[in-house]
């Protein structure tokens, strides 16, 4: 069976100042996601994680364009789809949960209208069937007394409640893939824990594939099966979460793991020197070398190939030289 989502060689570039400047926000991504699997997409701001999400659903801002690569969802290439087909896919089989629940909900419409909208348009539900559907959806995101709640408006709800409503809307079309872009950043710790547990339960029930975009490695440790670490528009390491946490191969992954404080520890943190890179002016060789504590001469000149330190495990770093390399066939190579 083909994987639920297979992204190969995806490149999304931004063309600013009337095409005079090209920013390679996403520059050659390869990953796969199976049904019922959760992948964490981790990186700092400006590393291209949000652009990746927007590319997957083809909702890039006008300056952005997918210049290369394919996004195979259920065997179909999303890059080739027309706008109309994409609209259909977005409402139904791919859903998105964004960071700010207040901005995702329209303050002028009731919860009923907003949660019912996808079912109204895509499944042509009306009247009693529609309200039953809305009640079920609200129940599935554990909103207490859905009957009364669905007549209310977003401003009457707390942040955690609103984010659940957004979750209910995402589930309305019966999606096979949910892309969650930092959905818990604005939530309190206890509310975040509730929400994450809820997402995990929903996933167990519906076998939906989940892509979790975050900069918080704790969330990845709690939620994800797979991890992809992005740096400057590329994945520098990806593989099984447990294996990577136990034995990170790429110095950037190591540095990230070393930079988060742990409860009960007073050790000084490992601070990655310097700033996240400017995508408009990337260094030669490995993009991470100016901040890398283990940089060698070679890193400053040549881009490292992708190595496979284990099964389903990839890391792009010269330190792994000598290990098995991953060969990728690039389809439709443009010079």
């Amino acid at each position, binding site marked *: 069976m083909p994987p639920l989502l297979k992204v190969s060689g995806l490149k999304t570039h931004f063309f600013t100042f009337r095409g005079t400047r090209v920013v390679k926000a996403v520059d050659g991504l390869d990953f796969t996601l199976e049904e019922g699997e959760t992948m964490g997409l981790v990186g700092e*701001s400006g590393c291209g994680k949000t652009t990746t999400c927007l590319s997957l659903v083809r909702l890039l801002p006008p300056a952005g364009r997918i210049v290369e690569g394919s996004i195979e969802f259920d065997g179909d290439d999303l890059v080739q789809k027309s706008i109309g087909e994409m609209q259909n896919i977005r409402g139904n089989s791919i859903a998105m949960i964004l960071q700010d629940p207040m901005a995702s909900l329209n303050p002028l419409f009731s919860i009923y209208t907003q949660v019912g909208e996808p079912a109204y348009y895509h499944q042509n539900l009306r009247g009693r069937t529609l309200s039953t559907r809305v009640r079920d959806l609200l129940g599935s995101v554990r909103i207490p007394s859905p009957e009364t709640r669905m007549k209310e408006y977003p401003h009457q709800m707390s942040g955690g409640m609103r984010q659940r409503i957004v979750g209910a809307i995402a589930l309305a079309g019966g999606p096979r893939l949910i892309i969650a872009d930092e959905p818990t950043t604005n939530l309190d*710790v206890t509310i975040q*824990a*509730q929400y994450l*547990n809820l997402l995990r339960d929903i996933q167990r029930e519906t076998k939906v594939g989940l892509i979790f975009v975050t900069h918080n490695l704790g969330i*990845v*440790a*709690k939620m994800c099966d797979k991890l992809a670490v992005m740096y400057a528009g590329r994945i520098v390491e990806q593989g099984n979460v447990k294996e990577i946490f136990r034995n990170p191969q790429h110095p950037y992954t190591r540095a990230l793991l070393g930079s988060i404080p742990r*409860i009960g520890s007073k050790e000084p943190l490992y*601070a990655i020197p310097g700033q996240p890179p400017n995508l408009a002016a990337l260094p030669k060789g490995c993009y991470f070398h100016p901040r890398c504590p283990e940089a060698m001469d070679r890193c400053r000149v040549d881009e490292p190939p992708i190595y496979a330190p284990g099964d389903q495990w990839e890391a792009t770093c010269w330190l792994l030289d000598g290990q098995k390399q991953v060969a990728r066939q690039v389809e439709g190579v443009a010079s």
Partner: protein
Amino acid sequence: MTTQPLLEVKGLKKYFPVNEGMLPWKTSNWVRAVDGIDFRIFEGETLGVIGESGCGKTTTAKLVLLQEPPTEGEINFNGTDATKLKGSDLKTYRGSVQVVFQDPFSSLSPRMRIRDIIAEPLEIHTELSRSAIDDRVGEVMRLVGLQPDMATLFPHEFSGGQRQRIAIARSLATETRLIVLDEPVSGLDVSIRAQIINLLEELQAELGVSYLFIGHDLATVAHMSHRIAVMYLGKIVELAESQELCENPQHPYTRALFAAALPASPDEEQEDETIAGEVPSALNIPPGCRFNPRCPYVMRHCSEDEPELKEVSPNHFVSCFLY
């Protein structure tokens, strides 16, 4: 530790009036944002304040910074009540207590050069000459790891982490004794967060300043602080040494916070039990113990009486009827 605390807060309360009725001069209800808290900060110490939104931690910061007058209570700084200060004494207080905010983008005036931003407290509080101010600006910039020749640039030319360094440099420019850190790393990238946390710790070791560190991330607060106060709905529910609190949390709310904290690695034992419900509004604080509607150990008299903050073991205070 010295006996005289640098800052001693006693019975601090802040109520905001809410007018729901038709008569603007008639206050129908009060938001009890901070409802009687006591804590002390010693020289060179970091007190962490942790809690969820609406727990009153930001209001506490505002009160300590004298941005809002307290409804009741004292803020003793070096033995004198800061809320009653006037004139030059007030100015001295403002020179000794500074703040670093969460958002490095809105905390620097976009139209001022870095030199002028850092120099502002000096211009207000000292009679230094222009060149002496320039020297001091260069000095604090070096202290926070910035090149002094960047002083002529504008804030938009810096990244988030560098801006936060500028904000810290500014807060250190005068003879600062206490810095209120209001979620200083929440707006930063992971890799930059560690830089700023390390910087703050180094500065404290070097200069002996005290911090009031306000945060919502348990791991960061625990890492930074010597002692931690856990706040819930305007009250301190638990106060203990950082190590002690992490190893031995007592109050059910503190335990819930620890349970909700994210694991450091996927191999870690994960607790699926999280407390239900959400923080109630500070407009309708539940009677009795504020935490009783969400508490898994709730007893009958929890909804009748309010527990006092009691010392359950040396330097470990909890307000709960379980102890």
